[in-house]
Structures are given as C-alpha cells and as structure tokens.
C-alpha cells in the first residue's frame, strides 16, 4: 500500500532556493496616473517607466530618485517602454497611442558619458541616410510608415525619431542585437504586428493575415524565430524562410503576455483568465504546467534574463508572484517549478493591480508598475 504522494518528486523548499526578491525596497512616486510599463536598462542602474499621464520617466534604481522625464502625449497613455539591449548605447523605445518614439535620453546635461551619448544618437539617426537614398532603389512597395523627426521641443529632450502605426501600440520587444524591434497593435488587423529595422528606419508588416487579435510578440533569444500571441494561440515563425513553425496552445481563454526563456526552448504565458502556463517547446504544444495562484487577471510575465532560475508574474489582484523555474539541459528531465513568494504592496485601483514586471539583468531584483501610480523595486 503505497502513498501516491510519496512517488512525486520532492520539491525543494523556498529557503533552499535563495536568492529571490522577498520585500519592497523602493517606491517610485511621480506618475500622476497608472504606470503601464517599465523596464530596467541593460546596465542595471536605471528604471524607465511610462504611464497614463503621457510621461516617460527614468529613475535611479535603489534611491528612487527621478533623473529624467519627458511628456510624450497630452491625451494618450504611454503603454510601452523598452530599452534597446546592449551597453554600447543608451536607447529607449516608447509607445503612446499610435506613435512610437526612439529616445537617446541625455538624463540631464552632464550625467551621461558624451561618447556614449553620441554613439546612441548616431545609432538612432543612422537610418536617415537609408530612408533618403537606399529605399528608393530597393523597396518594392510603399513603406508601412514614415520615420520622422518628432519636433524640436522633443528633439531637445533627446527624443530623436517618431513613426505612427494605424492603431494603439501596446507592446514593444527588441531583438537581442538591438537592430530590430517589434510592436503590437491589437486592433491593427493586417498591421497589428510590425517589425522595425533601426539602421534603416524601416517598418515592415510581415503578418498580413493573422488569425485572431494579436496580443504580444517576442524574438527568440538566439535563433531567427519570432513568436506572435493572439488571444488563444502562440505561433512561432521562421523569420528567414517566412513560414509558420509551430502553433502553441496554452489552453487559456485570453492570453495577456508571454516570455521566452533565455535558453529558447521554454515559454511562460499569462492570461486574463488568471492562469500562468509553462510550455516546454520540445515536449508538446500543450502546457507542461498550469499554475493558478491569482484571484484576478495576470497582466505580465517575465523570465529572469541573466541566468538566475527565476520568473515572475503581475496580476490585477495587486500582487506579483515569484517562482523558481529551472530548465535542465537533460532531455529526460523536465523543468522544476516552485512558487517562492507573493509580493504585495501595490494598491488596486478601479479593478487594476500590477500592470508590468521586469527583472534586473543580473541580480535577483525585479520592478513592477502599478495602476496605483507607483513603481516598486523588490529585492
């Protein structure tokens, strides 16, 4: 007579899986409305945030001191802010309404290395030449959008480039080399998912016939593969051959966000129907594990990018949940997933709780964006 419980592999206790974030270290106040999106810069020193007040703000990570800000829109929310990967330049992409901006934030006049700032401006500005000369010879059809100067008052603040898509942009994701980034406009139909080439100031719409409403998109961390999530499915595409590879079926009713593990073979998916799903892409198109811990919708999910076996989600119930998630290279063994900590502190405002989460590039620290107008650092 064997107790079936005894046959299950024993999970390690959270204590053995330290370090992971356990408490709130810093509260960033300044936004006058919901904070929609936030991201830690590749050097791990700053947080950028964007909110319903139309502002992008940059903060010192631990002190919470705001070092820079710009108002991008009087009417529209800033829905997405994402740093360009790499420490060779300091470039931030931000989306408000239908507009996408590329920013080389000078922080304040003398707070950034002049060489780095020049490099950043050069990278953003390099495409002007291409748009003028190269495009006419090569392009077969009209470009999806024109990249333009945003006007002198924004240019003075380091906001160097602007382009507009047809519908509100909700998601920005960079390719790891910092040359491409994608945007998602869920209502955009044939232009819902766009891929942009920084050095050419070129916007392309590779998914003319997308089945369903696009929710999010991500580049594979090492292969030329691109993932697009609609409400119920995530499709992976081979970018070089331009063909569908796989249709991943999380079984959720409405996907809010997903993230690709740095190793490339595992996905986490968050859904408005409160589910967090782990997919092992080598195993199945169905989830390897379904985690139901939240009382309300999950808004954002994120793997630790820098080699720590951690991932986090953010929910409208006002909390974040931190998990241990270790991917093993052994094909016979599956990922071990252990819930570690529920982080509470954000206030729920009008049914909305925590709207975004991001990890520090190397440390076990994460930041969250709240409908309560605050960002928080957890360590």
């Amino acid at each position, binding site marked *: 007579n064997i107790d079936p419980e005894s046959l299950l592999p024993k999970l390690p206790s959270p204590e053995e899986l330290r*370090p992971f974030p356990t*408490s*709130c*270290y*810093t*509260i960033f106040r300044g936004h006058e409305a919901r904070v929609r999106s936030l991201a830690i810069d590749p*050097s*791990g*020193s700053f947080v950028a945030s964007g909110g319903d007040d139309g502002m992008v703000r940059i903060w010192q990570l*631990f*002190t*919470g*001191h705001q*070092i820079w800000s710009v108002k991008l829109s009087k009417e529209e929310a800033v829905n997405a802010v994402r740093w360009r990967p790499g420490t060779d330049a300091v470039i931030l992409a931000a989306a408000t309404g239908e507009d996408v901006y590329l920013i080389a934030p*000078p*922080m*304040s*006049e*003398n*707070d*950034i*290395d*002049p*060489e*780095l*700032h*020049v490099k950043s*401006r050069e990278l953003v500005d390099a495409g002007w030449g291409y748009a003028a000369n190269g495009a006419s010879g090569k392009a077969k059809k009209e470009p999806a959008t024109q990249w333009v100067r945003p006007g002198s008052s924004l240019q*003075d603040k380091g906001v160097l480039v602007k382009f507009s898509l047809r519908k509100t942009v909700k998601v920005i994701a960079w390719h790891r080399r910092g040359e491409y980034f994608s945007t998602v406009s869920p209502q955009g139909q044939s232009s819902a998912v766009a891929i942009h080439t920084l050095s050419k100031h070129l916007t392309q719409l590779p998914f003319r016939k997308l089945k369903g409403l696009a929710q999010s998109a991500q580049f594979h961390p090492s292969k030329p593969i691109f993932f697009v999530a609609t409400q119920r499915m995530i499709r992976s595409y081979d970018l070089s051959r331009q063909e569908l590879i796989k249709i991943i079926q999380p079984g959720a009713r409405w996907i809010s966000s997903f993230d690709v593990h740095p190793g490339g073979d595992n996905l986490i998916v968050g859904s408005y129907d409160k589910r967090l799903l782990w997919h092992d892409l080598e195993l199945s198109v169905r989830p390897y594990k379904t985690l139901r811990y939240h009382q309300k919708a999950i808004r954002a999910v994120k793997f630790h990018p820098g080699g720590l076996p951690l991932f986090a989600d953010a929910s409208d119930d006002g909390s974040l949940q931190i998990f241990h998630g270790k991917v093993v290279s052994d094909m016979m063994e599956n990922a071990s997933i252990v819930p570690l900590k529920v982080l509470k*502190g954000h206030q729920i405002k009008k049914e909305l709780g925590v709207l975004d989460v991001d990890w520090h590039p*190397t*440390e076990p*620290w994460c930041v969250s964006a709240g409908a309560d107008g605050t960002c*928080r*650092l957890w*360590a």
Partner: protein
Amino acid sequence: MSDQTLSNSAGDTGDSASTSQVRIQLSTRHPDIALPENPGPILVNTNLRRYALSTLVNALLQSEKPIPFEFLINGTFLRTTLDQYLTANGISAEITLNVEYVRAIIPPVYLASFQHDEWVSSVDVLSKTSPAAIWAGNAGTKVPGQERILSGCYDGLLRVWNMSSEVIATSPSADEGGAHSAILAAKFISPTQIASSGLDRTVRTWEYSEDADGFSASITPKLELHGHKMAVNSLAVHHPSSRILSTSQDHSIRFWSTKKSEAPPTPENLLPSTSFKSSKRQKTGSSPTTATRGSLSELKSHTGQVSDTIFAPNDHTVAYSSSWDHTVKTWDLPSSRCIDTRSTSAALFSLTALPSLNLLAAGSVARHITLIDPRASATTVSAMTLRGHSNAVVSLAVDPQNSYGLVSGSHDGTCRVWDVRSGTSGNEGKVGHSLYCIERESAKGRGKIAAGEGVKVFSVCWDSDVGIVSGSEDKRMQINRGKGIVGEQPS
C-alpha cells in the same frame, strides 16, 4: 553615583546567603581598564544588573571617576538581572560565568536636524578629532576651533554648517562653476579643502575658507576631475599624499591627485557638453575659470557598479573597494593592480575598516553587514554577519572611541550601532545584533515605514566631538550623540 556607593556595593557582593548567588570571572580585552590583579571567581547575587556590576568593577579598579561598563556573557550584552539571564539561557548557577566588561556604548540621543531643500546624500564632519583635522594638525596647519558639518545634497549644492544649524557656506551653482546635478559624495580633505562627486560624473575639489569671525565662509571651485563615464558614487581622501579615490556606476575606480601640477590633463573627449546643443552648452558648460584634470590611473576589475572605497587604514598605497558584483577587492595603488578578491553572496553597497581587528565591514543589499578579513592568511570569507536592518545597508562608519564599534545607515530609514564583540554563534556562523537603532526624527509617529519611503538614510558619519551625523531622503541631516551615563536598561 558617588565613591561611597561604589565601595558599599563592592562590599555587598560576598554576603547575603538568603538570595541565590553565582560565581563570575571578570575579564576585559582592554589593558587600560584591566584589573590590577586577577581577583579570581567572585561570588555575586544573581539579582545584580549591569549597573551594579559596573559599580563592582569600578570599586575593584578603585576608579576616581566611575567609568560606565557593559557586560558581555557568551557574546551577549547583559540587559537583565544575572538570574534572568541564567534562566533565559538555561545555565546553571553552579558554574562560573565568564563575564567580559567593556566601556559602555552610550545610547545616541537625538540632538538636532538641519533642514535642506532636497535629499541629503552625504555628510562629513570637521572637528579637532576628525581625520582631515588630524592630517592638518600633523602638518602644522591651524584647525578651526569649532566643529563644522559638510553636507552634499541632491540639489547639487555643498553646504558647510556650524553646530547652531546655520549654513555658513554654500557651493556655487552650476552656472558659476558648481556641480551640474545631484551630489552623491562629499568629504573634507583638510580644514581648507573639500572633495565632492555626483551624478554629473565629475569629481571636484574646492577651496574652503572661513572669515576670521567664523560666521561666514566660502566654497570655491578648485579642480574638476574628469574620467568617469557614469555617476560617481563615493570618495575616499588621503590628504598627506594628496590623493583621492572615486567609485562609479561605470564599474571603475579612479585614482586622482588633488595637486594641479601633479595631475594629468583631461582627455579632450571626456570634457562634458561637447555633444549637446550649443545654446545650452554656453549656459551650463564647464566654467572656464576652473581647471580640469584627468585621473592618475583607473582601477578596473569589478564587473558591477563600484559602491564604495577606502584607503587601507595603515597603508595609503593600498585600497579596498566594494561592488554590486558581490565582491570586496584589494588594490595595490602604485601598480593599479587588483591583488585580492573576496566574493560574498550579495551585491555590496558600502565599506569601512575596523583597523585594530584587521577586518573590513561591507554593507549588503541583503540587509546585513558582512565582516571580512582581507588578509591572505584568512581562511573564511565572512568572519561575522551583523543583522537587523530591513533594507540595503548603504553607508558605514566606525566608532571613533571603540575599535569594536561601528554605525550603519540603511535605506530602511535607520542607523544602527553595533559592537562586534556582541554576537551569537549559529548555523551561519557568528551573528551580531545591533545595540541601538537610531530612527529618523522626521518619522516619529509614522510607525513602520514600508520600503523606507521618504526616510532612506544615504550617509552616516561618526565623530567623537559631534556624534553620529546622518543624511537622508527626509531632506534632513540628523545628529545623535551619546549623552551622560548609560541608563539601567537602555532601549
């Protein structure tokens, strides 16, 4: 407390068989307060507390002026009666208790707050006993008769205060040769020289001079030192050799001379404002009247922000540094080489040295302070861990009167006073707990403050004349000082 009570108390210790008694063996590590001859085990009543034991030791020492003592039993300061201690620790009264006595650390009482317009990032003291004054005194320079406090502020200004909370000097604005943004570190190099650094990537030295009456003074730019590519977090100064060390978010440490003639020129590409719009450059560009220089050397090996650095207490050709990369490094300055790396478990935000113990203390993001023996012969990385803070430990300073003492400043909004003789051994080695916790006066009545919001401490300094000075997000510099003789049960 009079001599009479002292001798009475001492006389009492042997008799009174009705109450229970315990044998104690008194000892100390300090020769100046050692007993003239070993009295052997002394039988005392178990209802004695710290005060009565202090009286007993003073009687044995035949002190003319009683010295307040504290008592350590098994690494813990006695805070109850001996009887309560024995009961709490399950120790039989039959054994002889080893009792170590030390000079009492006086509870630091709130004295004053100096209001600023913005967050106070850094504090330093100039007094007869401060390092800057001692260096100057050794060199025959006159030291002002009164104490001065230097503060660096997020408004980009340095201020020198007198003890009546009056600002007697303010550094010039950016347009007039001052810092371009928030100050992150400020120190007296000497009674007439100040060093500062901050978000504008620049290390600056300043001439400080007081009018004869001492009521007003001036802070004049002297040198702008360029080289760092990101914010300069902290500074160490050594006046006798005219050297400064700075640490930066750019992962490097730079080594500078405060002498214009000695310092190399600034590389042209490192001068600020070359890349910005010309209209603004003219307004806020570097002041043409201030000389700019480059660094003597760059110390590179850390892989994260360098949070803090110090000159080795007994050898100014050696430096130590702490970093977000979890390590403490030892540097040979003449060769700019990293000669030792000690790895810890978490990002380090602050560093100081306990010279007579050959220990470094490093404040961690993981809410504790790690004591590290940097000598090559040391076998363990962490000699002891000090626990009690609830947020990152971002500033450390040693007790100027007790070589075992230090104070820490934390983003939890408190400063804690520690004595490393006090600690208990557990699974994770020796763990120390703080003697006193200094809260922000501005936080009185606010209860427990989540994430240290509004009260984060950024800098702490401990001077024997002035006391414990701390700068905070509450826009105040706060002074706490031990006053009078320690109470029966300090809290």
